[in-house]
């Protein structure tokens, strides 16, 4: 204290400073702006997600009989060119090769393939939805893991929903494949698999889409 008083006396005419000295912060702000812009542009804020897929064992025996699937439950989904989906039900038998069933055309929109799948899969979807709702409203208290397990068990026990065979025509793209697999998840389809397209299905798509046929008839 003593010192300060002394100073005041010695200072005489000097005005006491009221403000702290101003530092020019403009360059600092400039630099920070630049850094912020840099980090905002380079950083990936939302990490990409993953979708798990399990492929069946590679079939090594060419003479092995294909697995038996109930024809009434089979839904063939063919991913066509130009983001179109072609659908037919059931199985094409050998005697039908000259008279192939017509294809139903649809698309990846919510009113297209999703509506159709939900109609076919309503019973299972309702079951799954009920459980999810019970958990959401707090009627049923189980952990997230057991909820997943319950859903998986429901899918396993499902005996009425469609069995979807996903086939891709050669002009389809990767986005289509992911979209359709995603659609299976959304609709809670229990059984679906990615299978190779057959020559008659290629032919059916080509007829439906009006493109020149390149399908080669497989020899039996």
């Amino acid at each position: 204290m003593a010192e300060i008083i002394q100073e005041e006396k010695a200072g005489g005419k000097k005005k006491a400073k009221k403000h702290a000295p101003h530092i020019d912060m403009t360059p600092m702000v400039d630099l920070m702006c630049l850094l912020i812009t840099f980090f905002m542009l380079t950083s990936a804020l939302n990490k990409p997600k993953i979708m798990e897929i399990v492929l069946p064992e590679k079939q090594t025996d060419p003479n092995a009989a294909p697995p038996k699937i109930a024809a009434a439950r089979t839904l063939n989904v063919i991913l066509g060119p130009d983001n179109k989906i072609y659908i037919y039900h059931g199985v094409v038998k050998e005697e039908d090769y000259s008279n192939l069933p017509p294809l139903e055309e649809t698309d990846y929109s919510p009113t297209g393939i999703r509506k159709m799948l939900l109609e076919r899969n309503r019973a299972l979807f309702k079951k799954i939805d009920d459980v999810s709702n019970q958990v959401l409203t707090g009627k049923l208290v189980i952990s997230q893991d057991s909820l997943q397990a319950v859903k998986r068990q429901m899918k396993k026990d499902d005996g009425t929903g469609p069995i979807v065979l996903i086939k891709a025509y050669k002009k389809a793209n990767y986005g289509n494949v992911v979209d359709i697999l995603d659609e299976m998840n959304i609709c809670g389809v229990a059984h679906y698999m990615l299978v190779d397209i057959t020559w008659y299905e290629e032919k059916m798509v080509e007829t439906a889409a009006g493109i020149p046929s390149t399908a080669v008839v497989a020899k039996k």
Partner: protein
Amino acid sequence: MPKIKLPTKSPHIDMTPMVDLFSVVLMFLMLTATMSPNDPATVDTPNSISEKPTPNFNTMTLLLSKDDRVFINFDNGEDTTLKFRPKILAEMGKRYNVEFTETELKEFEKFPSSMGVPMSKMKDFLATKDTKARALLETGIPIDSTDNQLADWILFTRQVNPNVQACIKGDSKTSYPVVKKVLDIMQEKNVKQFNLITNLDAVKINLAEIQK
């Protein structure tokens, strides 16, 4: 007439709060930011409803670009003690009769992103420092049945690191035959479970919608 005195100094604006705010934002961005990987080809991944985050380590990522080239990347996250990358390259070298020197293996270890170089050009690729010259060499990993290098990459990656998880990061415009070939190769090499990298696009549907 009295003269009007013009202020000689520009008025000072107190920038302290602004600087404070900027610091906070900058700190936040610096701490949360994970650098987006510098892929050799821009890949626009499709969307899905899946909410599982991408694994950070023990991954083998196959990158499928729009122009149907295939790239591969082995990522072991923060863990650098195991040094998988040079081991895999050394194995590949043995298989394709290319001898890699210590420095070349080091260079491959440091290489930060996916690479799509056929083995015949690997030495040139590791020797060039120029990114543009490197990009020219990246013609994609051969996946033909006559020269199936991708299958060997997958095989050796799994030999060196048995815990590796396969991820596929494809552009939505990649044509299906390429995807099919890659999936077939995976299946042949007994990789049956793998992850497709997608962007999150949440969809909620309710029962009322279906009743219609």
